[in-house]
């Protein structure tokens, strides 16, 4: 599948944004994070900013973005429509939570209630994003039981590492938060490795034989219907060399998992200014690494239409 940057950035940014938003809603609402004005303002601005930037980026993928409002109508059948609705609906409790927690400096009571609603909305939105990909049968690497948990795991991971960096920056960090961010990073790493292992051993029942209805033997494409690449090949026929794929997997692992884990471990033992610096660096590197991971998620996914072209 063609890794369009607008979609790669959209899923990565909203994942981190919703992860952070869910944590702030949960921990802030219940009073585990103190209602500090500047921490709250920067945290909520970062979370909602990432989400808004991602959503804006996703509209760049559209051929007719001025009609995007129509996408709210088909929630009965379409995961994309459900994603749009969930994303917009989550803004409502998120804004109420922002007012209560940041501007009124409250936690507990109604602020806790809207905080929990915000977290629930964030989780629901990430689920809908994951299901868009998990529901696509023609792409075996996506239509797997690994896809939805991956989106949830990575949103939790990037959100937690961001939340930790934020708390460390305001000198409000804790060992528990650091340990949680480290644990989430290791969990993300484990899930990605398991996913790659699963995909590399995938035995796809759909072949050139079933695609053409020609039973038995081998079916080999000897002539394309056209000499130049068409929409199908540009959009669905994206190919990535195996050696580049292996190298990019190493880069993604180093940036998204290994380096942040190491930096968070350092932050666990280092004194404050250093711990904050390491935490911030971990968040930045992880975001860059997740962009590579998401690029690979698209680039390594193979659509059944490529079978017609012998790819």
């Amino acid at each position: 599948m063609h890794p369009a940057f607008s979609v790669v950035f959209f899923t990565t940014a909203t994942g981190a944004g919703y992860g952070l938003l869910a944590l702030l809603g949960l921990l802030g609402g219940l009073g585990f994070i103190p209602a500090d004005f500047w921490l709250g303002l920067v945290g909520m601005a970062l979370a909602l900013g990432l989400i808004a930037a991602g959503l804006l980026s996703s509209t760049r993928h559209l051929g007719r973005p001025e009609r995007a409002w129509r996408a709210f109508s088909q929630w009965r059948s379409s995961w994309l429509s459900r994603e749009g609705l969930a994303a917009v609906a989550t803004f409502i409790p998120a804004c109420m939570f922002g007012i209560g927690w940041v501007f009124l400096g409250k936690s507990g009571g109604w602020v806790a209630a809207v905080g929990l609603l915000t977290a629930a909305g964030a989780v629901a939105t990430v689920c809908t994003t994951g299901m868009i990909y998990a529901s696509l049968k023609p792409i075996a690497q996506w239509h797997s039981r690994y896809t939805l948990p991956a989106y949830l795991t990575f949103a939790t991971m990037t959100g937690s590492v961001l939340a930790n960096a934020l708390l460390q920056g305001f000198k409000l960090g804790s060992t528990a938060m650091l340990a949680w961010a480290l644990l989430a990073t290791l969990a993300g790493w484990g899930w990605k490795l398991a996913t790659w292992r699963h995909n590399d051993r995938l035995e796809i029942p759909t072949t050139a034989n079933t695609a053409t209805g020609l039973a038995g033997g081998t079916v080999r494409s000897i002539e394309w219907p056209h000499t130049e690449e068409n929409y199908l090949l540009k959009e669905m026929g994206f190919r990535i060399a195996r050696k580049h794929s292996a190298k990019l997997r190493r880069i993604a692992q180093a940036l998204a998992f290994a380096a942040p884990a190491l930096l968070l471990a350092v932050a666990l033992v280092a004194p404050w200014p250093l711990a904050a610096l390491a935490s911030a660096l971990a968040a930045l590197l992880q975001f860059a690494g997740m962009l590579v991971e998401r690029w690979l998620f698209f680039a390594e996914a193979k659509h059944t239409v490529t079978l017609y072209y012998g790819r």
Partner: protein
Amino acid sequence: MTCLPARTEKKLGLVIDLDTCVGCQACVTACKEWNTGGHMAPLTDIDPYGGHVDGVWFNRVHTYEHMTELGGRTVNFPRSCLHCEQPACVTVCPTGASYKRASDGIVLVDEDKCIGCKLCSWACPYGARKFDTDVGVMKKCTLCVDRIYNDNLAAEDRVPACVAACPTSARHFGDLGDPASAISQLVEERGGVALMPELGYKPTNRYLPPRARSQRAAKMDAPALEPIRAEGGFLGWIDRMLSN
């Protein structure tokens, strides 16, 4: 509405005979010619005379080599929308632009509602949907919905353009939901197959596999050729003498 109808009154579709398709591309050009002025018009061409030609086509003919223990054969394979009974391209549509008609099962796109998110093209395993980069919307085969019900055309012309154009009658049109229809009988008789049945899209269109090889075909073994150059020596002299 992108929810699918529980059942359709008819299941209009195509049956394509891979035995008789000669890969002449007449259906491809007839489709393009009709539809660039039809329901989904225009079928935009991008850089048509340049080095990177691209554009919208609803019907394409591939060519494959099918090798089995009985030997190899060339198979021309027309590929277009199969008007599935379970079209995920419709259910994934967030705007309601894609729909499946309850009356005849044809899958269509309402261009005025399409936002060009391309998700339907990802959801189609068969590559039936084509994005028009110029207009910014998705387009697809309409089964010539503007021909098959068109009272302005003679009755025999009320078939999809690709079917009308086929010089070898490799393309057939009709109601595959009616077991008594000529097209259903043909599928029954020739053992017509659905493409990628394992994915569960339940395509309406059927493909008739190439017939078994005939034993009545002429033997290709030609008699051995005689040497062109005459031999030398005594035998050669005799050969030349006798040839005169």
